[in-house]
């Protein structure tokens, strides 16, 4: 059925439509852009409560929680330094997310690649220990995060015994055809006299060549991390400064 002609619409309706639309745009333009509030990270709810709240979609809930947690420290305008974050709570959130979605790698990436950047040795050790504990519950799927933790322990903490303990854990527990043989020989990588950048390059190269990492976002993220390491080695430690 054809619509009636436009001239059947009263001028007042046209005027109201145009005026309110223009006012809406103006109001939005005058309102300051939203920024994240630097509020303290609350304790996570119990896993059972999260399961109930997920309405039978624990994986979707886990993914939303990943983004929620990520939003706490990576929003423009606030930039909460990692050392100001409560790592007990971060660890609790990451553990809850893994409870909801044990196959998910996101929380362990955040632990090994993001929260481990903190300029506080105690917190670094805490988050690496978290990765180690979570590795033990599913070594075949989570070995690469422990490999990363092992390199961090060797080069950031300068704690060779800890790094070797992590490397030996991979060799001992991640004994599966899906885990490449070089990963089970991480201790060789650690004992070789090479810098963190070279070790990370070997690790990333091995992961990429072996087809372990396929997600383009993750490849981009890890490559950028590597570039940051290179820049840090060449000049001032930029990545550390950002987190201080």
């Amino acid at each position, binding site marked *: 059925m054809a*619509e009636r002609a436009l001239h059947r*619409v009263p001028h007042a309706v046209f005027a109201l439509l145009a005026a*309110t639309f223009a006012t*809406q745009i103006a109001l939005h333009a005058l309102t300051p852009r*939203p920024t994240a509030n630097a509020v303290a990270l609350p304790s996570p709810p119990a896993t059972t409560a999260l399961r109930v709240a997920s309405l039978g979609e624990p994986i979707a809930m886990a993914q939303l929680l990943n983004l929620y947690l990520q939003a706490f420290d990576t*929003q423009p305008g606030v930039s909460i330094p990692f050392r100001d974050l409560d790592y007990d709570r971060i660890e609790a959130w990451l553990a809850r997310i893994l409870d909801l979605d044990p196959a998910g790698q996101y929380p362990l990436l955040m632990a090994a690649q993001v929260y481990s950047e903190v300029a506080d040795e105690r917190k670094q050790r805490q988050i690496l220990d978290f990765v180690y504990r979570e590795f033990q519950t599913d070594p075949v799927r989570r070995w690469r995060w422990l490999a990363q933790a092992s390199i961090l322990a060797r080069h950031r903490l300068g704690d060779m015994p800890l790094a070797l303990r992590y490397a030996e854990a991979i060799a001992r527990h991640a004994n599966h055809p899906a885990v490449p043989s070089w990963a089970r020989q991480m201790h060789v990588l650690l004992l070789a006299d090479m810098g963190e950048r070279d070790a990370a390059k070997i690790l990333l190269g091995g992961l990429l060549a072996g087809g372990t990492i396929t997600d383009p*976002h993750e490849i*981009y993220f890890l490559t950028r991390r590597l570039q940051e390491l290179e820049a840090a080695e060449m000049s001032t430690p930029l990545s550390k400064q950002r987190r201080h």
Partner: protein
Amino acid sequence: MTERPVAYRDHLDWARTLSISRYTLLEAWRNRFVVVVLVLVAALLVASFFVEQLAITESRRVQVGFLAAALRASIVFVTVLYVLQGMVREFQDKVVEIILSLDLPRASYVLGKFFAYLVLCAACAALCAAPLFLLADAPQVAAWAVTLMLELWLLAAGAVFCMVTFNQLLPAATFVFSFYLLGRSITAIQLMSTSTLAGTGPGAQAAARLADLLAFVLPRLDAFAQTAWLVDSGAPPLSLPMAALQTGIYVGLLLAAAMFDLYRRNF
């Protein structure tokens, strides 16, 4: 004999407009809409006491937080559905055509319906706030209730617009609830889209631009009826005037769009 042209009124007849409102309210009363809302509020109040018993600490805070969030989501759902189903029936039963065959401008129908929904939404917000007055500070509950009422007005206008435009329950309900979810989450979407961890590639930039564009035309409903006002420090001073301003602008926009569609429709 030549046919005499029919002279239609161009100006609003307020008495007849208010008659439409009165009958819409009467219909809501006879449909026991208020009873449904009362049962809903009572059920959620009971559930909140159950939640309070489960809490190990901050039991009152947990109870108020649960009750406020659950009431807000439920009342929005019930009110929007009521508005939509009431109007869809009028369209299907040709009630609209009978009303429009009268010597009455089409805008009167839109305004008459909306005025009735203003009253219904105010009553719903008051009923939702009633149990909260027993559990939290009165000024904080009052601020929460006023912004809940504004939010309901805005969504009622959205439902009127969608019903006039789509005429069918499913697309109209889908549109209104999507609009509501987007309005509630647009701030978070904007913040997440500019996350530095997500990278700065073309995809991320396009996502951020799209979020910004959506934010321009959507009301920020996350700034309305916040549970934090009840359990923490109350509403910031400017939140009520800003919510009222946003509601006024957006209700005007939605009603104008509804009138525009109704004036162009051929029955």
